[in-house]
């Protein structure tokens, strides 16, 4: 028997456990071999349905292979390979096992044809990605890791509740388009879980809270998989949901606004993940062939350029120990290669012509145009300007140029530069040859990104955004602050809630609950006790006392009778005999 289909996720999840046993060059070879083997596995897959198993009377499908799942699996594994190159110098095997398990979970979600296996891989991703934060082993990272974990547990419970409800209502676990159940409770719960993982505000505060706390190499993995597997799940289940159009557009601007206020380099980039995923969510909501193609293409391009940007910021963090823009400046002198590679990622995310973002983001924006949604079109275009403003201008300006802080870092180890080079090459290749990406999109592509009008208006937007940046530069200086987001509710709000509620709760306890308790429990119990006490003292006690008194009286009578006089005894005997005779005669 030949094996017809090997799950690439299983390859990574099981294969990861070999790494702790290996050392040195062999271990590094294995780190690269695993994602490469899984990628080759996916490249040779023929669309179809594989890995169908029966579990407790339910049919589980582990391998739904079609153009949509394939294109996501390609980019997940390309990024996993690049991320592993970036992490080659890290000796901590636990991080590698967690990272590969995390990628495996994302692949499991991608190929899942039913909700139950989707759920299992969904939770596996939550657990393994939490480890990538916790393994930073700093106090703030451990706190952030646990917050991240708890948020995703809540999301997972939404998903499970939705799945159980959906199954009990329809009798089916198949994971397909949910449009027919729109508005129902099961639909809502599953959508909420997907939106939480896609970091849609107000459910997305976990992302900028957690990602900047992860390990330098772990953060590179985290940027790719959680939000983008959620985008995949949204495309699969919720394409054409009107709500998503607006949530996506708001999300694109939300991330940009927060990025203005941010001082932590990696957190600024994290807010731009939210902004970029906004384009994808919006594309899913529009739901036309061009829009879902755009969401898919943008997810593909985004994973690579955002990985590159996080690798650049991570390299600065690792080499200088600095994470805040206020502490950096002047690093271009000693880290020019890092700067150059970072800028390729920055041009890609800003959708500069000839870089990947230009050919993917514009599909979503054009889809909004074709659908005659002027407000959405304007919101997305405005967010584009904001993206270039922060990722392309503000961050590199304050990190590498700006006021010289005196901080100096050497270029990072060669493997980190190679990884950044691979991602940069991919960003340029997609930008120059969009056909490479378009050929793998789920719907046939009839879209031409390079038209004179598109190129010239994009250059206009970007050029004049740069003008605005330099004119307002002195207002953009980063300040030592943190900005409130919805994570406030579980970081501060819960404690404040307890403090605020303490007074009323105490009063409620003493005056109301206490009174009721007094009335319903304490008094009846005391009353009953009193009754029993009286019963005890009057009935039981007096009975005992009575018996005692009677015995005492009897014994006194008997003592009086025992006089020691023989005549008295004789008289008593005679009386007794007489009484017995009378009794005997009467009975006869």
């Amino acid at each position, binding site marked *: 028997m030949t094996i017809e289909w090997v799950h690439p996720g299983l390859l990574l999840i099981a294969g990861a456990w070999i790494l702790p046993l290996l050392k040195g060059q062999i271990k590094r070879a294995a780190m690269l071999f695993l994602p490469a083997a899984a990628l080759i596995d996916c490249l040779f897959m023929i669309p179809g349905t594989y890995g169908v198993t029966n579990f407790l009377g339910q049919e589980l499908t582990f391998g739904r292979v079609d153009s949509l799942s394939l294109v996501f699996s390609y980019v997940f594994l390309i990024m996993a390979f690049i991320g592993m190159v970036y992490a080659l110098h890290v000796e901590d095997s636990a991080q590698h096992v967690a990272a590969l398990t995390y990628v495996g979970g994302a692949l499991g979600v991608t190929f899942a044809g039913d909700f139950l296996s989707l759920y299992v891989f969904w939770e596996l991703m939550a657990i393994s990605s939490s480890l990538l934060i916790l393994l930073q082993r700093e106090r703030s990272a451990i706190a952030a890791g646990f917050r991240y974990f708890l948020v995703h547990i809540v999301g997972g419970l939404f998903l499970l509740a939705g799945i159980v409800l959906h199954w009990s209502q329809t009798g089916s676990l198949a994971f397909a388009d949910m449009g027919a159940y729109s508005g129902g409770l099961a639909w809502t719960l599953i959508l909420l879980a997907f939106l939480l993982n896609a970091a849609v505000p107000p459910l997305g505060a976990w992302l900028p809270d957690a990602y900047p706390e992860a390990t330098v190499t772990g953060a590179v993995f985290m940027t790719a998989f959680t939000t983008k597997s959620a985008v995949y799940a949204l495309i699969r289940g919720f394409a054409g949901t009107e709500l998503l159009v607006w949530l996506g557009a708001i999300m694109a601007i939300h991330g*940009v*606004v*927060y990025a*203005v*206020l941010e*001082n932590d380099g990696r957190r600024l980039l994290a807010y731009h993940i939210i902004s970029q995923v906004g384009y994808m969510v919006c594309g899913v909501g529009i739901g036309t062939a061009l829009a879902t193609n755009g969401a898919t293409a943008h997810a593909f391009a985004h994973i690579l350029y955002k990985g590159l940007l996080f690798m650049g910021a991570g390299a600065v963090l690792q080499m200088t120990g600095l994470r805040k823009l206020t502490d950096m400046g002047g690093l271009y002198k000693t880290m020019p290669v890092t700067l150059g590679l970072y800028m390729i990622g920055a041009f890609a995310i800003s959708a500069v012509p000839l870089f990947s973002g230009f050919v993917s983001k514009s599909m979503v924006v*054009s889809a909004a*145009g*074709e659908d*005659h949604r*002027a407000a959405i*079109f*304007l919101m997305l*275009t*405005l967010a*584009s*300007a*904001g993206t270039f*403003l922060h990722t392309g201008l503000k961050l590199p300006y304050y990190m590498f140029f700006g006021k010289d802080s005196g901080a100096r870092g050497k270029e990072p180890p060669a493997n980190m530069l190679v990884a950044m080079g691979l991602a940069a090459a991919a960003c340029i290749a997609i930008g120059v040859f969009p056909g490479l990406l378009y050929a793998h999109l789920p719907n046939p592509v009839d879209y031409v990104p390079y*038209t*004179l*009008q*598109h190129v*010239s*208006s*994009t*250059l*206009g*937007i*970007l*050029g*004049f*955004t*740069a*003008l*605005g*940046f*330099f004119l*307002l530069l002195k*207002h*953009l200086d980063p*300040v*030592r*602050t*943190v*900005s*409130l*987001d919805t994570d406030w509710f579980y*970081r*501060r709000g819960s404690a404040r809630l307890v403090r605020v509620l303490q007074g009323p709760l105490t009063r409620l306890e003493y005056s109301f609950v206490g009174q009721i308790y007094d009335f319903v429990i304490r008094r009846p119990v005391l009353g009953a006790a009193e009754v029993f006490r009286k019963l005890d003292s009057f009935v039981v006690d007096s009975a005992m006392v009575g018996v005692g008194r009677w015995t005492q009286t009897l014994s006194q009578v008997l003592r009086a009778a025992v006089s020691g006089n023989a005549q008295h005894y004789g008289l008593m005997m005679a009386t007794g005999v007489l009484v017995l005779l009378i009794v005997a005669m009467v009975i006869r």
Partner: protein
Amino acid sequence: MRFARVKRVFYVGLAVIALAEIILPLIFHDGQSHFSFENFPAWGSIYGLLSCVAIIVVSKLIGKLWLLRGEDYYDD
């Protein structure tokens, strides 16, 4: 001075872009615009500048009035 030259190149570049945006649609018609406002002369340049200024001003305002806290806000 080097900085002044970079500045001059930057401004010349902006002028070229804006002019190209105005002139190119008059010569070539590749009919990509979905809305009438896209046909406004130098639409991208104007909207880019407006967007950038709006984002900075509005965000800073929201931050000052509402969102910004001291760096140790969450520290116990």
